[in-house]
């Protein structure tokens, strides 16, 4: 059966319309007669309130409901709370066995926490699902409401049904003298002065201002949708990187996963002096860093980039002094100062070969710790590098080996050939660091190897012949191509918030019937201000009213 939704003014409304779209007469009685009107969307029917829902309609209606949205928001905030009870797994860099850790540190509660998946709450399926549902709600709620609202607001009738006016929340009724049209015409400029757009139609008037504020919520929702989408797409490969890399001073090191190389030219750290610290901190031996900074140069590889057997060709693209709040930023690749390590690392030494018998010195040569040259010709002698040990120690079998890959106690085994030496060469073990020479008794070892140390020795003459990097700088390298969209989304949210909350949409309807003026006023919030404005308008028109008397009924409960 077709429902009769034709209003007495002749306009045909859709099923579910609360107030006639043309004249505003209430079509459906909600609550008691004489009660306040349902003014949302000006009473127009919303898509989701049509008859006979199918499955798609059911899902759509579900997400379109504000009640559901509120539930989703509340569930999300409760879920988020759970994730703050114990630290999440993401706060630990290298947790080998998370299950055990939670059990040991937090007891049975911790174990349960981990088992329930709460140790990684914000990546759990149910949390993400809540966010997805909020996103859906944002889309569907907005779509469902924006069109009816736009239609209702853009096609407004000036002369509304009497009941429409008398059932607003701000109402005045009183007598006026003289011609109705003339009164209306006099009132129009007064109201205009208050910033309203006034439309008159004989004995009726519609004044409206700041309609744009009604779009506020929808702008907010659009902004949030963009924000959520940007966050989602951020996870896609190639759009996101987050690495911690250490850069020893003076070395050009590749940024993993990219064709970029970074060189830490110099690292500086400055501490607050005793005087600069407040009294409480002085004489406590506390070192508070005032500044730490890496002078960094960024290179891009131009050729031979992916071939490990060839040296990549690099081109400098930018340089920057990286500090904690001042990262290096190159086309979306950002390097943040994260931490530092002041242990010096030996890089190379430049010894000379000394003939102990004659006192002659032969050639200074450069001996790198990493990838050293294999053979050196110094005067009449040749030195062939046979083996090297970065952190010298003798293993259980008495054989030389290395304790770690770091040049903490380097040792080099040479085969020396030349005059006064056996034809096949003699072995010579060299410790560049003096402390290691003594610790491992270099001379004793060499005696056992063939006694070269009696005739020759390698000696570093000056400190300037020793090259080491004073510090390593830990940088956090990040790339985030989706960030511009994140910020755009947030900016739109802010715009919507400001539009929606700092301005209100106000409308005043007037009609004069046989000398009786009826005024109805509506706003989305701040009725207090609207009443004040109406009082001021009426006062200028010669009608004194008390603010309170305009207040037509409050919502009970």
């Amino acid at each position, binding site marked *: 059966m077709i429902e009769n939704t034709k209003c007495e003014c002749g306009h045909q409304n859709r099923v579910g319309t609360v107030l006639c779209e043309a004249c505003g007469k209430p079509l459906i009685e909600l609550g008691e007669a004489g009660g306040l009107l349902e003014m949302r969307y000006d009473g127009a029917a919303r*898509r989701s309130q049509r008859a006979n829902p199918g499955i*798609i309609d059911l*899902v*759509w209606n579900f997400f379109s409901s504000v009640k559901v949205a509120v539930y989703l928001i509340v569930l999300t905030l409760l879920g988020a709370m759970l994730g703050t009870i114990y630290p999440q797994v993401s706060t630990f860099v*290298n947790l*080998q066995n998370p299950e055990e850790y939670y059990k040991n540190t937090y007891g049975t509660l911790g174990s349960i926490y981990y088992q329930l998946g709460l140790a*990684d709450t914000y*990546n*759990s*399926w149910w949390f*993400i*699902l809540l*966010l*997805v*549902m909020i*996103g*859906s709600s944002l*889309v*569907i709620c907005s*779509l469902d409401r924006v*069109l009816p609202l736009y239609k209702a607001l853009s096609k407004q009738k000036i002369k509304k049904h009497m009941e429409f006016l008398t059932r607003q929340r701000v109402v005045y009724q009183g007598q006026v003298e003289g011609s109705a049209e003339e009164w209306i015409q006099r009132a129009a400029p007064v109201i205009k002065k208050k910033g309203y757009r006034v439309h008159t139609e004989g004995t009726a008037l519609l004044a409206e201002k700041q309609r744009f504020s009604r779009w506020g919520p929808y702008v907010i929702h659009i902004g949030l949708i963009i924000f959520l*989408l940007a966050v*989602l797409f951020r*996870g896609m490969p190639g759009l996101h990187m987050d690495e911690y890399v250490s850069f020893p001073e003076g070395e050009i*090191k*590749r940024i*993993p*996963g990219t064709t970029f190389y970074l060189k830490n030219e110099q690292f500086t750290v400055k501490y607050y002096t005793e005087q600069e610290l407040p009294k409480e901190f002085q004489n406590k031996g506390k070192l508070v860093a005032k500044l730490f900074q890496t002078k960094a140069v960024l290179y891009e590889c131009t050729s031979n980039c*992916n*071939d*490990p*057997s060839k040296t990549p060709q690099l081109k400098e693209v930018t340089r920057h002094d990286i500090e904690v709040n001042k990262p290096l930023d190159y086309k979306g690749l950002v390097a943040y100062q994260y931490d530092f390590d002041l242990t010096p690392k030996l890089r190379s030494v430049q010894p000379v070969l000394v003939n102990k018998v004659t006192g002659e010195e032969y050639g200074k040569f450069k001996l790198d710790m*990493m*990838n*050293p040259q*294999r053979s050196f010709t110094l005067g009449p002698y040749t030195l062939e*590098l*046979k*083996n*090297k040990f*970065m*952190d010298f120690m003798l*293993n259980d079998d008495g054989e030389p*080996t*290395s*304790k*770690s*890959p770091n040049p903490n106690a380097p040792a080099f085994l040479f085969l020396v050939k030349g005059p006064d030496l056996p034809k096949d060469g003699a072995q010579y073990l060299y410790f560049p660091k003096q402390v290691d020479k003594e610790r491992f008794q270099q001379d004793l070892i060499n005696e056992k190897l063939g006694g070269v140390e009696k005739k020759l020795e390698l000696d570093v003459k000056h400190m300037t012949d020793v090259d080491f990097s004073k510090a390593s700088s830990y940088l956090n390298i990040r790339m985030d191509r989706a960030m511009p969209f994140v910020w755009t989304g947030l900016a739109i949210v802010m715009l919507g918030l400001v539009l929606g909350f700092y301005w209100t949409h106000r409308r005043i309807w007037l009609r004069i019937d046989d000398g009786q003026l009826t005024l109805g006023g509506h706003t989305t919030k701040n009725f207090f201000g609207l009443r004040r404005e109406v009082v001021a308008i009426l006062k200028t028109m010669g009608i004194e009213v008390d603010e309170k008397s305009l207040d037509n009924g409050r919502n009970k409960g």
Partner: protein
Amino acid sequence: MKKYRRPVQIVILLFIVILGGYAISSAVLGSHDRLETGDKAPSFSLLGIDGRVHQLKEYEGKAMVINFWGSWCKPCVKEMPALQHQWEKWKDKGVVVVGINAGEDQMTVQNFAEGRGVTFPVLLDPDSEAQRDYNISPLPTTFFVSAKGEITSIHQGELDLDTLDSQISQLVKP
């Protein structure tokens, strides 16, 4: 506008399902950085001590034992003979043993390999790229990879001959 209502609804709901599914799966699956059994072995492209560049894909179709090691690491050194032995035993049966050295230079690695009589491919990883891709922390770590490129097991710590043998037999089982 009326007749576009239904298609619009369907399109939007479809988008939500797709995006939502993507969001949930990438969060749940992507949140573990560790490689686990069942994952595909990450590819690598490294220089070997033989002077040639070796890539993962050249071993396609063969089961692999990928061993990460360093010359300073005692258990790594200890298990080298076992690995060499297994290489000789299984290399004609479709299994290849590959050693990836963690960041030492050419000389050290070459001396080591020659000194211990290691003949299986030994690769250099000076920039720690492979170590990053395989999430290596402690050494030695050995990955057993099936002929299809799937990681069947990850072993941390020294391997003895028997364990190696049984693991490899598992690999070549059809």
